[in-house]
Each structure stands twice: as structure tokens, then as C-alpha cells.
């Protein structure tokens, strides 16, 4: 996508958002009943939400379970099971006041014991909880009374609140008795959400059913917070791995909603499938795609070389190759939708071939091979790779693609075994967790200030302080080029026009409360 087309695109985007918003109040009153068949692109990996980091599990199980606190529409912290919370002045005590009368699906009331149990559970070594270190600063948890629970911290770490609210893994509040009863191998997840678990037939479907005793909390629907009304009797999530097959299933009306429309197919949907009663929506998410450049590997360790790379790349080309243009160019680890975003984060290099070549010469680059590690698991990663390679080659950098399996890429990423590595990330409401990756490419080791910024930001929730810190972090990125962020990615979903009340949440989680099917 060239510069010129971008505003058009933005206009389209705004139009679609307006359409989505305006259609909701105009529509007739919600109707109860029916089953919503949802095409998902990969099966959930586990039903115990604590044991997996897969976003799909968090998305599906987000209907069964609830968090203590959640993220709002704009990724701010909102109350869910905790009505409110208090933080002591020294940040070392956090007290949560729980909503009363919240029932688990087995009829038991949710109490402070369950909350304590939950947070103790995810911290035990036996449970394969993926983000244990985010909760490592908890000293102990105290049940004050039935509806009050207090966390005592070893040191100030308010980022933890974001981790609690975080999208994936889902820090679900589980029912103590039920988990004790079912043992480590959970078979029947019992939560407090608007839908209860019926069955999981792996690779066939996950079936949820409305929990009749669910009492929605007051206030408008807001992210994971606010009013959550289950109109649909059942939710049936159907994993379809083949993208074309998924589209065909939507065309055949075998699924009502498709959570992943391939970027390459968007025009086809708009031009042809719209006539068949299929609604397409597209929103820019805070998810981003980037390359990591290792600061301690030959050739790329040279700052001038990295700067040359930054000058060599036209991010529009990358955006086109990776997302077929369905994204918004962006340069920073702090996403556009993020609460701490400022225009400062738009600062970045502009493509300048002459400068790139000059810097290469200064860096003493002599045609050494530079490897771009990439996996084929996500088509957009490969798209980035193709584009970056051709851009780098154009200024004379001998870039080679090193295509590997996902598992091997992960290993390379954590094992310090890459020069340039392509990855993408889902929304990080707390930029501290985003800057985590600076640990993997040797940045922190070379520039310890980065680690300090993270530490300082984690210790406060003060917006102004945080904004300043993250701007400093971004300036460091500009100066040292540890990575190149290309874009914030769009989310494209489609559904049959009789599905009402559904709208994409940029955070990437699906929400089927407030959704109904017109008969």
C-alpha cells in the first residue's frame, strides 16, 4: 500500500466502525435463544486456562471464567469479580473487594478463599502457568473476610495488575472445591462466567451453554467489564485449520461467524460475499509485527549496520507483504491504542536508500551473510520476511531467509540463536511486558538503562511518569535499533447478517455476550 491509499483505507475503516456502532442501536430488541456456530482457526489447547498461553483458549474460556480485574475497551483496568481495589501508599498491599453473590456454575458462591486459591495455584511449580514471573513478587495472600482478599508484595510491582487482567493466559478465578475434587487433570471447568462448559471434543468443537443464574454486573459493556448478557443458548466453537475451508463453511452457512478472515480474502468478501449476506468488519488492533535484531551477533551488532537496515526498509512494502495492507504503520512497542501512547512513538526512520548505503560503507560491511529467522506458522511473519529480505537486498545486504518450524524459532528466540528474527505480539496493555523482549536480543545487556526503565515503570501506575519512561524507551530504540516495529495489525472478522450485536474488540478477544441471532 502506497502512502496515498492509506487515508482512503482509514476512511473505510472509520466507516466500517461507524456502521458497526450505528447498526447496534437501530436493530430490533435482542432475541434470546439459538446456537452460534463460531469458526475458529485453531483448537483450544487445554481446558484448564491456567496451563496454557494460547490466545484461543483464553478467548473461549473467557466466557466460562472471569478474572478478578479485566481490561476495558481501551485496555484500561476495569473491575470484574473484584468490585474495586485499593493500593497502599507503598504499593506493597493490594486489597480486592469482591462482588457479592457471584455464583460458580456448580452453584457455589465465589469467595475470597477461591481468589486466594487461584493465585496460590498459579504460583505453585506443579501448575504449568506461563507467566509465573509476573506474580513472583507476591509475598503472601490473606483472606481478610469472605469478600475481601489482600495481596502482600515483596516489592512494588503494579504491572502485576495488568498481568491479572491480561488477555492470555487467562488468570481465571477457579472454584477451590471443584479443582480439589477434579484434581490436576481438570475435566469440567467450573467458572463464574455467563456461559458454562458443556463439552470439548478436541478438533471437533467446544460447546458452551448459557448459565442461567448469571447476574450481569451493572454498566455498559466495556471490554471484559460492564454488562454481560448471554442471549444465545449455546456457543459452539468449531476449529477449522484450512483457511479456504473456513471461508467455504461461512459461505455454506455452516458457521455463523468466522474469527479469522485471511487478509488476502478481504476484497473478495467486500465485493462478492457481502451480496450473500456476509458482514465483514475490520479494526486496527494493538497487535504488532516486528523484527528483532540481535545486538551481540556478528555484523548486526554494529549500530551503523542496524541503522542502515532501518533506512533500507519501506514499511509500506512490509505492511503489504505481511497483511496485504490491512494494518496501520507504527514504529513503537507502545501500540497506538495503548493508554501510554503519545505521538512521540511515531518517530522513526524514513526509507533512504542513499543513507543506508552510506551507513553500510561506514560500518565496513562486506557482503557477509545475514540470516533472517522466520517460521511459516503465521503467514504474516513470512510476508515480513519476504519484504524485509527484498528491501535489504536492494541496498546490498546479503540477507538470507532461514525458515524453520515454530518450535525451533521459539527455541532460537529464547536461546540467543538468531541475527534477525521475525515475530509478532498480541496487545500488551502494559508496555513493560512489551519491552520484555529487549532481554532476548541482548539490548538490556548492552544498554542496562532499558532494564531500569522497565523496573521503574513496573513500580508505578502514575500515567505521566509512565508516559515519560516509555518515551525514553522509544528514544533508546530509535538510537540503538534493537528492533524494527512495522505496523499495528488489523483484525478482520466476518459473520452472517442475522448475527447481531457482535463487534470486534481490538484487543483480539472474542466476546459473545450481548450477541444474538435474529430469527
Amino acid at each position, binding site marked *: 500500500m502506497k502512502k496515498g491509499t492509506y487515508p482512503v483505507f482509514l476512511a473505510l475503516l472509520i466507516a466500517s466502525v461507524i456502521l458497526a456502532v450505528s447498526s447496534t442501536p437501530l436493530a430490533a430488541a435482542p432475541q434470546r435463544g439459538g446456537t452460534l456456530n463460531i*469458526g475458529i482457526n485453531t*483448537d483450544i*489447547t*487445554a481446558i*484448564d486456562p491456567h*496451563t*496454557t*498461553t494460547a490466545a484461543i483458549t483464553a478467548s473461549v474460556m473467557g466466557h466460562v471464567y472471569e478474572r478478578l480485574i479485566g481490561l476495558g475497551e481501551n485496555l484500561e483496568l476495569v473491575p470484574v469479580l473484584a468490585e474495586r481495589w485499593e493500593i497502599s501508599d507503598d504499593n506493597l498491599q493490594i486489597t480486592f473487594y469482591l462482588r457479592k453473590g457471584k455464583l460458580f456454575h456448580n452453584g457455589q458462591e465465589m469467595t475470597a478463599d477461591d481468589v486466594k486459591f487461584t493465585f496460590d495455584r498459579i504460583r505453585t*511449580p*506443579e501448575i*504449568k*502457568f*506461563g*507467566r*509465573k*514471573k*509476573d506474580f*513472583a513478587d507476591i509475598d503472601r495472600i490473606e483472606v481478610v473476610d469472605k469478600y475481601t482478599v489482600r495481596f502482600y508484595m515483596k516489592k512494588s510491582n503494579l504491572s502485576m495488575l495488568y498481568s491479572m487482567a491480561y488477555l492470555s493466559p487467562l488468570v481465571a478465578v477457579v472454584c477451590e472445591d471443584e479443582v480439589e475434587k477434579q484434581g*490436576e*487433570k*481438570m475435566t469440567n471447568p467450573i467458572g463464574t462466567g455467563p456461559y458454562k462448559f458443556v463439552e470439548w*471434543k*478436541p*478438533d*471437533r*468443537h467446544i460447546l458452551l451453554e448459557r448459565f442461567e443464574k448469571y447476574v450481569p454486573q451493572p454498566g455498559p459493556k466495556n471490554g471484559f467489564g460492564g454488562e454481560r448478557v448471554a442471549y444465545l443458548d449455546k456457543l459452539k466453537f*468449531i*476449529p*477449522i*485449520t*484450512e483457511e*479456504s*475451508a*473456513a471461508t*467455504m*463453511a461461512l*459461505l*455454506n452457512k*455452516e*458457521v455463523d461467524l468466522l474469527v479469522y478472515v485471511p487478509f488476502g480474502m478481504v476484497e473478495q468478501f467486500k465485493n462478492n460475499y457481502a451480496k450473500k449476506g456476509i458482514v465483514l468488519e475490520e479494526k486496527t488492533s494493538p497487535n504488532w509485527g516486528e523484527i528483532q535484531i540481535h545486538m551481540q551477533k556478528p555484523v548486526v551488532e554494529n549500530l551503523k549496520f542496524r541503522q542502515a537496515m532501518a533506512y533500507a526498509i519501506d514499511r509500506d512494502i512490509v505492511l503489504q507483504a505481511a497483511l496485504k495492507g490491512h494494518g496501520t504503520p507504527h514504529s513503537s512497542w507502545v501500540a497506538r491504542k495503548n493508554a501510554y501512547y503519545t505521538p512521540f512513538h511515531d518517530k522513526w526512520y524514513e526509507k533512504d536508500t542513499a543513507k543506508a548505503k552510506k551507513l553500510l560503507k561506514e560500518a565496513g560491511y562486506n557482503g557477509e551473510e545475514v540470516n533472517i529467522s522466520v517460521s511459516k*506458522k503465521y503467514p504474516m511473519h513470512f510476508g515480513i520476511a519476504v519484504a524485509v529480505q527484498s528491501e535489504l537486498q536492494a541496498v546490498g545486504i546479503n540477507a538470507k531467509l532461514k525458515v524453520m*518450524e*515454530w*518450535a*525451533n524459532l*521459539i*527455541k532460537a528466540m*529464547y536461546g540467543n540463536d538468531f541475527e534477525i528474527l521475525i515475530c509478532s505480539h498480541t496487545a500488551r496493555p502494559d508496555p513493560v*511486558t512489551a519491552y*520484555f523482549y529487549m532481554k532476548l536480543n541482548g539490548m538490556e545487556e548492552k544498554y542496562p538503562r532499558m532494564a531500569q526503565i522497565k523496573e521503574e515503570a513496573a513500580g508505578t501506575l502514575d500515567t505521566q511518569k509512565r508516559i515519560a519512561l516509555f518515551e525514553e524507551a522509544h528514544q533508546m530504540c530509535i538510537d540503538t535499533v534493537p528492533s524494527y516495529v512495522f505496523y499495528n495489525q488489523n483484525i478482520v472478522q466476518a459473520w452472517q447478517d442475522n448475527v447481531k450485536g457482535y463487534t470486534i474488540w481490538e484487543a483480539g478477544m472474542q466476546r459473545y455476550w450481548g450477541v444474538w441471532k435474529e430469527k
Partner: protein
Amino acid sequence: MLNYSIRRLLYFIPTLFIVAFMVFFLVRLIPGDPIQVMLGDGANPETIAAVREKMGLDRPLPIQFGIWLGSVVKGDFGTSIQTNRPVLQSIRERFPVTITLTTLALLFSLLLSIPTGMLAAVYRNTGKDYFFMLLTILGVSAPVFWLGLLSLLVFSVKLGWFPSIGFVPIWEDFWTGLTYLILPAVTLALHMAAVVARMTRSSMLEVLRLEYITHARAKGLGEGKVLIKHALKNAFGPTLTTIGIQYGQLLGGAVITESVFSLPGLGRYVMVSIHARDYPAVQGCILFMALIYVVINLVVDLMYTYFDPRIEYN
């Protein structure tokens, strides 16, 4: 007969041991760390180490192999690293899907291949022969997944005859279940049909020259009876062996077909598990598929005696 079966079974034990050995070490040689894949971003080394220890992944490989083999013999395939469910449970859920798919494919391919092979042999080197053989070879020549997607496009989207995704077990609702399985089974069957048709053709050709066929005709039997009763039964022996071997192709093909048609079978599970480096699941699945294959071939061996009674079991 029983004696023979038992001896055949015993004969498979060393083979199975080598199979198990190969499965285990092949899977363990796969680079990548299952725990890392599973835990993703936020995992710290301590967590990873703890989980590794819990899974027994920190012990020397030969010991892990011994432990695994010991429990497999007892029917315990371990627990999936990714889903935390017993591997055997997953296999039990998925095995019926794969076995119905492959059996149906087997059935379709036999329905398609035996008559074509036979007719091609009868009309040897005529236009009809060429036509039949070309037809079946065309089926084997296109990549399965492409064929599968094309058939979805035509029969599901354009014609609306079959659903494009999903699965209903045929033991729950036979006819509905069948509609979900026909396209994938036919796609899978085409590959096998070509091979079996060729085998049928050449063994029919061989048999048709034999004197007992002339003899059967000299008795005044109708041509149909001569071909089916006298020729086919004898020609079927070699064909049967091919079918046994081809069953492996079906199982392998299921890996692809199940992905294309969104079927919850073993093949899809294997692929997901390989990508997640879910060792117990991969090991269990591949071993189980090899086991099915070996058992099918055992059955084929035993069935062979029906078609060729000259094989004595002493």
C-alpha cells in the same frame, strides 16, 4: 489357524520393539523444547526446569525410553504435555474417526478399483482398458490436499451436496455422519484405488491365462461367474497384500485429509502434537498408528489364506 495367528503375533513382537525404539528416538531427536513452546513468552528458566523435572524430561534418554516402554506395555501412553490429558484418552477419542475415515476410504477404493481393474484386464490393450486405467491413474496423480479443496469447492460450496466442515460420528447418526465423511473418504480413496486397480488388473491378467480359467469356461459357466468366482478370487491374493500395504498410505493420507476436511482424527492430532513438540502425544500416536498398520497387515495375512488355501500353516 489359531496357532498360526499366535505365531504371526509373536513374530511381530521384535518388529514392534524396533518400531517403538524408532518412534521414541526419532521424536526425541526433534529439535525444540516442548515446555518452551507451551509456556511461551513469560516462562522463566526455573519454571521450565520445574516442569521438565515433573515430566521426567530431565532424565537420561535410555531411562526415559525404558519407563515409557514399560508403561506403554501396560497400556499407559503418558500424559500430553500440552493438554494435560492422558494420551490414550485422546487416542481413544480420535482413533474411531480415523478408522471410520480410512475404512470408508478402503471400501470406496475397492468399489472403484476392483471392477475397473477387472474390466481393464478383460479388455486388455483396448480403448476401454486405457480409459479405465487413465481414470484411476488420474486420481493418484493429483496432490491429495488440492483434490480435497477442489472437491469441497465443487461438491460442498457450488453444489451444496455435502457439508464442508465438521464431523458427526456415524455410530451416533449414521446417515448424517456419512455425509460428513463421503468427500474426505473419496478423496483419500482415489489414491489407493489407482494402485489397487493396477494390481487387480495385472494379477487378473496373470490369472486369466491360466488353464483353470479355460477349464471353468469349458464347463459352460457364464463369463461373469468365470471372472468373479474363478479369476477374481485367485487374483485377489496379491491384490490383498497390496491393500494391506496401501492401508499405510491411507493412514498417512489421513494426516492431510483430516486437516483439509476439519476431521478430529489421529492424523490431525499427530501434526498438532509434532508442532507443539508434545513428545508423549507424538510417540503415542505414531506408535498407535504403526500398531494399527501392523494389525491390519496381520489380518490381511490371515485373510490371504481364504483366497489362497494352498498356504499351509505348519
